[in-house]
């Protein structure tokens, strides 16, 4: 072993142990609340709210009442996880090469990971229950192996079923999907154009636009919503004159016979969230654009491209990583928003995060509480996948604005 540092300068064993212990404590603190709600969401209230933590993990009451996973199921699960990890190791680099032509490109890796995870999840959902039933029936038929089919881990999906099917959480999911997809696309297309121009301009105007954007970024969202609410509630009456003017009105009537009431419209929320997010978007994108040398667009312009041509053909292709990263943060803003959606959407058009209040405000029975927990886990699951796939881009995005300064 080659030692790069002399013995005396390497950290002492005590220091290293201390560092590891500190990190271990932090990791437990960071993950514990999330792991715990995941465990609780699969248990009957009697287990989920038990005083003994082992009951929450193994769920004896749930096992007695609803059954659960047998030793064979657990073995199948472990094998499936091992196969999944192996598949990730093997498939992701190859797929990344197919997708982006370069297996080390972080973006190609993310795309490949997304594909592998999607296929893996679909396979698991179809194949695992069938496999589990086959193995369990086979094991219970053989006298000596019957213990393999006995449930050991109490599990129930009834809270998820209650949330998604009975309480119609799928509608909120669709609303969230519409809002986030809209916010990400509009935000990026408007933002990249502006950020590119701001990054390439030395004018006073560009500077002041950025400063005003910085002030806008600091505004509490409730301030803006206080401004939106009255016109949104009255938009039908407010927009009527526009619909009645001769030429403009004829065009508008083709789109909608009556002026819309913007309150409760997911499409209006998209515009609102895009605008609120715009200051952050242009700041982040600009810091990415600043890393692209101006010689690149000058070269493109010498070759006969206009500003827009240079932007589209030369700059955007090298900017993909920055655009994706900014898109991730736009997604998070729209997905995590409570305040704006709670105030400007009604019960029918509500997104997932504000809709969860109907579960925890109602927490009158312990079943209600576990249902709220199941809803919370449902909201968190996509974010978990997001961190798994886009960890590098998230880190790059966080540091983009900070490290140069």
């Amino acid at each position, binding site marked *: 072993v080659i030692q790069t540092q002399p013995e005396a300068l390497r*950290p002492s064993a005590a220091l*290293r142990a201390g*560092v*590891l212990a*500190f*990190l271990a404590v*932090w*990791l437990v603190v*960071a*993950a514990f*609340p*999330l792991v*715990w*709600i995941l465990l609780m969401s699969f248990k009957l209230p009697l287990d989920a709210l038990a005083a003994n*933590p082992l009951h929450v993990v193994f769920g004896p009451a749930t096992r007695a009442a609803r059954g659960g996973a047998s030793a064979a199921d657990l073995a199948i699960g472990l094998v499936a996880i091992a196969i999944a990890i192996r598949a990730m190791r093997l498939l992701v680099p190859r797929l990344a090469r197919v997708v982006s032509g370069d297996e080390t490109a972080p973006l190609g890796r993310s795309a490949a990971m997304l594909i592998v995870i999607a296929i893996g999840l679909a396979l698991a959902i179809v194949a695992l229950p069938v496999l589990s039933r086959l193995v369990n029936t086979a094991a219970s038929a053989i006298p000596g192996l019957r213990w393999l089919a006995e449930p050991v881990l109490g599990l129930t999906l009834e809270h998820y079923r209650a949330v998604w099917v009975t309480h119609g959480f799928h509608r909120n999911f669709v609303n969230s999907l519409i809002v986030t997809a809209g916010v990400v696309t509009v935000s990026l297309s*408007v933002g990249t*154009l*502006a950020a590119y*121009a701001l990054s390439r301009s*030395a*004018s006073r105007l560009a*500077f002041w636009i950025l*400063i005003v*954007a*910085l*002030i806008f970024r*600091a505004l*509490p*969202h*409730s*301030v803006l*919503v*206080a*401004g939106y*609410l*009255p016109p949104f509630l009255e938009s039908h009456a407010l927009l009527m004159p526009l619909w009645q003017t001769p030429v403009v009105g004829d065009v508008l009537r083709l789109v909608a016979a009556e002026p819309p009431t913007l309150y409760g419209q997911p499409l209006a929320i998209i*515009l*609102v969230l895009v*605008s*609120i997010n*715009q*200051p952050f978007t242009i700041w982040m994108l600009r810091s990415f654009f600043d890393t692209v040398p101006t010689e690149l667009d000058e070269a493109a312009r010498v070759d006969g491209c206009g500003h827009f041509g240079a932007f589209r053909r030369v700059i955007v292709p090298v900017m993909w990583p920055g655009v994706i990263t900014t898109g991730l943060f736009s997604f*998070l803003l729209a997905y*995590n928003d*409570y*305040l704006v959606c709670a105030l400007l959407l009604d019960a029918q058009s509500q997104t997932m*995060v504000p809709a969860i209040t109907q579960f*925890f405000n109602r927490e009158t029975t312990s079943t209600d*509480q576990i249902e709220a927990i199941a809803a919370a886990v449902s*909201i*968190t699951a996509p974010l978990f996948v997001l*961190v*798994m796939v886009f960890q590098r881009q*998230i*880190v790059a995005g*966080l*540091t983009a604005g*900070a*490290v140069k*300064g």
Partner: protein
Amino acid sequence: MKRGTFLLFVGPSLAMMLIFIAIPLASVFVQSFYVTQPVYRQVETERCTPGFPNPICTKEVRSAPEIGADGRPVRRAVFVGLDTYRTLIEPEKLAAALAGAGLGSLLKIDFYKALRFTLTFTLITLPFVIGLGLAIALAVDSIVQALRGPVIFVSLLPFIITPVIGALSIRWLFVGDGILTRALEALLERDIAMFAQGWTIELLMLFYRVWHVAPFAFVIFYAGLQTVNQDAVDAAIVDGASRLQRLRYVVLPHLAPLIVFVALIHLMDAYRVFDEVIGFSSEAHVISLQWLTFHFLVPEGSAERSISRASASALLTMVGIVVILVPLLRRNWREHRRRWGRA
């Protein structure tokens, strides 16, 4: 880039910010001086009860809401000047409190209650976020490469999670029969109700915010640690500097601009604290400035949205934002000068 092309590129973005940020901001400013209320009219009615020899009649003047053509009460915006601000701030009580009546009575008023919490919340979380973020960054920087990826992954989870959900997940650990409350009860051998009094809820809210933001500080500081000048570290080693001295005199000065950056972003975000109040359902004990505005905007029972009060409290909230922004703006001004010369 020519001005025309420049405007073409930034046009859509500017238009959206103008319509959905600048104009609402201006309208909030105007709204805060007006109150929209139903128009009342004096109606004279004469009521008669049978009597002898003449019916007994009483004339009565009542005020009744004026009903418009659409069958709904007519509403009109009335200019009230600073009245709405006055009902929020209650200057007489403020003067009395300053004159020596004590802060206790002042903190019963919603606005001061919210202000007190927002300020203490912002200032108390700041050192913890910086300290914990720095500690994690230094620790991760000293472990083997193979472990760093997984550690960063787990550390990012509290940061990426929906704030309301993150607050809820901690609340469920401590609520009545939550696992950690049970553990604390067993440890201290007494009954504990974390949600029965303000200060315990506040403690949980502080803990949640540090848990949520420390990963952000960690990632920034960790990135900064990768660019520490190795020559300077080596020189310090040659000079016989201890590990602590190297941290104090080489690493921390290198990270100083990043610490300032994280502090400013944190101040800006923590001042807007809101999701915690929803997640911990703390409104009976602890409220924040942004929650106050939110609260005025929610119709409750028969009470309508009080847009006017919401606007006034929103503008009062912004005073604090301006104070926080000044250093950030100065920093950008200097950077602009450095980059483009005296443009």
